[in-house]
């Protein structure tokens, strides 16, 4: 399986236009200089304290996500096509959520099985008959894209609940500007640093009407032990709002307040980075110590906005994913601009039979898993692992989906053995208000650092790269180096 390399086909092949400068830079920079820059980057990240907390696995719980100094580059035209497809997709996801918690027309029309929606454990009946301000459910979505060829992009999965990683997108660009100012200056890059401003505008637009023109926004975090805690603080800081924990908030007469040194202060919008289950012990898990008792009642009374809305899990469930193209047709009357990866639902009998017969070619995933846990890549698995997954699929078919193993595109990456191609994906962040969809150019590129590995998740040893979108399309044709 030969993967498409985004810089060049084969070691002597022509360099693709967008990478002309970078290829020349790599060719003329000695290996020890690149290695020195890599070490400098690591020190920079360690010093700023951008860590990713992994508990319960031994070792230092505060880990750095490895940063690769070679950027991943997209041309303007490529990005325009992607962003049009992303905006379309997220509009459809929001329409789907409004429908599921409202009239349920798509279900009634038989275009998606009702049990995948109302029978889904991520479905929140508490949201029925209630419309969030502006009708938006997933204000902040992260859509994971993969590429297999010059024009072949696929959506691998949607993240409609609490997607993370945007701080790395921003810090990676800062790091590149510090480490390689000349290289960056030789390109005209679309900027990413507007993201916090766009996020704040999105959150303010979600505020209940009575909050007035300057609503009080907070970021709700599970606390400093959460793996993405750095990001929660970073975003709050960049937006100039407080980062709060559940215990900092309380509800009185269906109004949410935060405890401050000067007494209680009313809160209008909560950008919550904790899961639905933990939001409110009175409404969801009663043992939650992270949430705020009475929060759902305040939300339903229209006194506070929650971003994202509770119940978005039904839109990014892997079993619902195969129906997203159908949502686009149903709600928008358009053809999908971004393709899905063909997906087999193991609970369908004929799909299951196919999956069991082709386990050595397929990627099998938990329908509700995330972070690369509970996943098997058929071509890389041992016979014993495949047998184990076959047994699991037979026991609980509805828990599993399968997809063909895609030859994810590669980008040159600095490894112990020198520069080598490594597989990447891309997570752009899509911000929605009732009037518009905003997407910062690019997103977070994750890279699987182990040779041949297709797993890019940071919890599984993946790294990140800065993602460049060029202001204009490069000239076609290669540059010889």
């Amino acid at each position: 399986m030969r993967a498409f390399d985004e810089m060049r086909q084969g070691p002597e092949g022509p360099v693709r236009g967008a990478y002309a400068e970078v290829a020349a830079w790599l060719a003329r920079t000695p290996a020890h200089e690149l290695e020195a820059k890599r070490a400098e980057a690591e020190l920079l990240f360690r010093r700023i304290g951008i860590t990713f907390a992994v508990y319960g696995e031994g070792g230092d719980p505060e880990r750095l996500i490895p940063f690769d100094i070679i950027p991943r580059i997209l041309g303007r035209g490529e990005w325009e096509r992607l962003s049009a497809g992303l905006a379309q997709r997220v509009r459809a996801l929001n329409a789907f959520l409004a429908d599921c918690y409202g009239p349920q027309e798509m279900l009634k029309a038989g275009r998606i099985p009702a049990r995948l929606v109302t029978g889904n454990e991520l479905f929140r009946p508490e949201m029925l008959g209630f419309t969030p301000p502006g009708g938006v459910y997933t204000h902040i979505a992260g859509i994971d894209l993969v590429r297999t060829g010059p024009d072949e992009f696929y959506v691998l999965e949607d993240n409609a609940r609490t997607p993370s990683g945007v701080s790395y997108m921003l810090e990676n660009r800062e790091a590149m500007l510090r480490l390689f100012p000349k290289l960056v200056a030789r390109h005209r890059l679309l900027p990413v640093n507007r993201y916090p401003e766009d996020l704040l505008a999105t959150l303010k637009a979600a505020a209940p009407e009575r909050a007035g023109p300057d609503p009080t926004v907070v970021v709700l975090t599970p606390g400093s032990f959460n793996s993405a805690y750095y990001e929660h603080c970073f975003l709050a800081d960049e937006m100039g709002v407080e980062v709060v924990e559940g215990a900092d908030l309380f509800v009185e007469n269906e109004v949410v307040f935060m405890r401050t040194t000067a007494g209680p202060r009313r809160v209008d919008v909560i950008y919550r980075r904790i899961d639905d289950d933990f939001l409110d012990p009175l409404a969801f898990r009663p043992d939650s110590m992270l949430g705020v008792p009475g929060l759902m009642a305040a939300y339903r009374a229209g006194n506070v906005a929650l971003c994202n809305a509770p119940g978005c899990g039904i839109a990014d469930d892997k079993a619902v994913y195969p129906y997203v193209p159908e949502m686009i047709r149903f709600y928008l009357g358009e053809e999908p601009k971004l393709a899905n990866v063909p997906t087999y639902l193991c609970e369908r009998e004929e799909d299951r039979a196919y999956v069991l017969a082709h386990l050595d070619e397929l990627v099998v995933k938990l329908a509700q898993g995330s972070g690369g846990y509970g996943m098997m890549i058929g071509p890389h698995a041992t016979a014993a692992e495949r047998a184990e997954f076959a047994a699991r699929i037979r026991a609980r078919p509805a828990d599993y989906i399968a997809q063909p193993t895609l030859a994810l595109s590669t980008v040159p990456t600095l490894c112990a053995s020198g520069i080598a191609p490594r597989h990447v994906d891309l997570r752009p962040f899509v911000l929605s208000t009732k009037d518009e969809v905003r997407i910062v150019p690019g997103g977070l590129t994750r890279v699987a650092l182990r040779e041949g590995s297709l797993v890019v998740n940071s919890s599984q040893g993946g790294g990140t790269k800065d993602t460049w979108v060029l202001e204009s399309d490069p000239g076609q044709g290669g540059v010889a180096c």
Partner: protein
Amino acid sequence: MLSRTADCLFWLGRYTERAANVARGLSVTLRMASLSSELGAELDAWRSLLVASGCAPGFDAKHAETTQENVVDFLVRDPDNLSGIIPCFAAARHNARTVRTALTVDMWGALNDTWNQIRAAEFQGEKLPGFLEWVRERVLLFNGAAQDTMLRGEPWLFVQLGTALERADNTARLLDVKHDLLGPGSQGTVAYGQWQAILQSVSALRAYHWVYRDRLEAKRIAELLILRPELPRSLVACFGRVLEVLERIAAGQGGRRGECHRLAGELHARLAYGRIGDILEGGLHAFLTDMIGRTARLGAEIEAFYIRP
């Protein structure tokens, strides 16, 4: 500001100051122990350091013998001793990480670099003096970063409040453990060495000479450390700072005040208008015990008003 943020910043100020104070205490004790001529006297020095820092009960629960190595390990590294240097930095860094956005990059950098280095630092035997000096420098760097880069809002004030209160507590404890050496009639070469040590531990030996221009004397040492506002670590200076900070917080909140403001004012007035003769007459130990108790109460009142209403 969030009450939880205030909590973290207040204790950030306290923990960093405590780490430096323990380092000061260790430096002076090391010096005294190496100067002592009588066999066994150096162990008394280590013992009294444990008492001064309030760590004796915890130490005795783990160690049968008071040796330099045991005491140093307990006061520097032992994770069971929450007032030890490394645990203080761990707690300070944890607090700083929790309220990362309330700190400046320079403050965070000072703490985070310290934390990254201290975990691998060697501190026993020959390495001890250099290590203690380094700890003091790191806290000076952190305080300097706060002083130079922090916006003068509530976050700054709560860090200052924690630092000043912790410093007051440290000075009072340090004096109390040597109170018998500062009482009437105390003199002689042993006492002289101890006096020097007390002054050195609060960086005040030179200051003494500048203020009094005369030989060391017990009564003056007590006066310098309790009542002289020029000395930044004297009780009156520390409580003056606590009161000033509390008043600035109140001013920023439209004059909202509580019991902590009254108590700080009372404590400060008692020192500002007190006389050393009266204090010594009533008994230095009784006075200092009372001060330590009131400092603890003031800390509790500050928390009750701003942090856990």
